[in-house]
């Protein structure tokens, strides 16, 4: 078992590291919590990265469309005010770096994990659902009046398997 605080600590350090190093943005970490439900966003951007190996799960970052635009502008020097392809790509890559670094830390406890390519969702009034009964560790961050949520969910795989010969880890996780 992994101590729940470890999930919080690794998610927090990965997020603050990415934002300070590549975006030059300081985040204020807020109290973490456990949530049995997949995030439901009414209007915003969500990026999901899958994790697989002897443990399986996923990491998600969620924010408003406005914050996603600000993130993109800081990341690649654009001046966008509406979500476009650049914004979706930037949010996806930020999620990739946060969950990727989280993965590197958690591997010390659970062994090697594969990382999927990010999936980014943008819209209004949408709901989402993950199949399974594991809770999500939620770590909120405040930045300039906006909220970024980082969620991770990880549990032992029911049937742990090694990647098949000839396939890389990324090809065996979520497409």
């Amino acid at each position, binding site marked *: 078992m992994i101590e729940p605080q470890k999930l919080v600590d690794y998610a927090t350090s990965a997020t603050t*590291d*990415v934002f300070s*190093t*590549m975006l030059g943005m300081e985040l204020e970490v807020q109290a973490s919590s456990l949530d049995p439900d997949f995030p439901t966003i009414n209007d915003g951007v969500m990026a999901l990265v899958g994790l697989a190996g002897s443990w399986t799960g996923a990491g998600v970052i969620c924010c408003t469309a406005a914050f996603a635009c600000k993130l*993109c502008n800081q*990341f*690649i*020097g654009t001046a966008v005010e509406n979500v476009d*392809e*650049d914004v979706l*790509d*930037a949010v*996806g*890559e930020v999620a*990739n*770096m946060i969950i*990727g*670094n989280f*993965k*590197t830390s958690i*591997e010390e406890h659970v062994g*090697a994990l594969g*990382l999927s*390519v990010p999936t980014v969702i943008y819209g209004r009034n949408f709901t989402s659902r993950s199949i399974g009964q594991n809770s999500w560790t939620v770590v909120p961050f405040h930045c300039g009046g906006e909220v970024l949520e980082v969620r991770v969910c990880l549990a032992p795989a029911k049937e742990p398997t090694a990647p098949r010969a000839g396939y*890389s880890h*990324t090809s065996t996780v979520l497409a």
Partner: protein
Amino acid sequence: MDVLIVDDSAAIRKILRRVLQQAEIPLGQVYEAGDGVEAIESLKKQKVQLILSDINMPNKDGLQLLGEVKGNPEWKDVPVVMITTEGSQAKVLEAIQLGAVGYVRKPFTAEQIKEKLTGII
């Protein structure tokens, strides 16, 4: 020096292109590819003197690309630097054993990239 940037993130490709332009190196053309398959197609069309590549990409990942580059007589001497979120010792070792000359973890600063390039050039 002509460079090929390989990453499925357009944002990272933009950032690396900007870093290359700001670095004190004799920069020629900068080519981009979104995955290992596109990278191989690019290498068949134009010569480069440096490859910067991510590892986790769809279609053909960075380690598969690295293996193909080092296994091709035309490309085997092109230095390849991995720029990736993968931080496990096993992955770093695998990349070095396949022939990567450098490994930079994401997130990175412009200075880290420039320092790595200086060491190679």
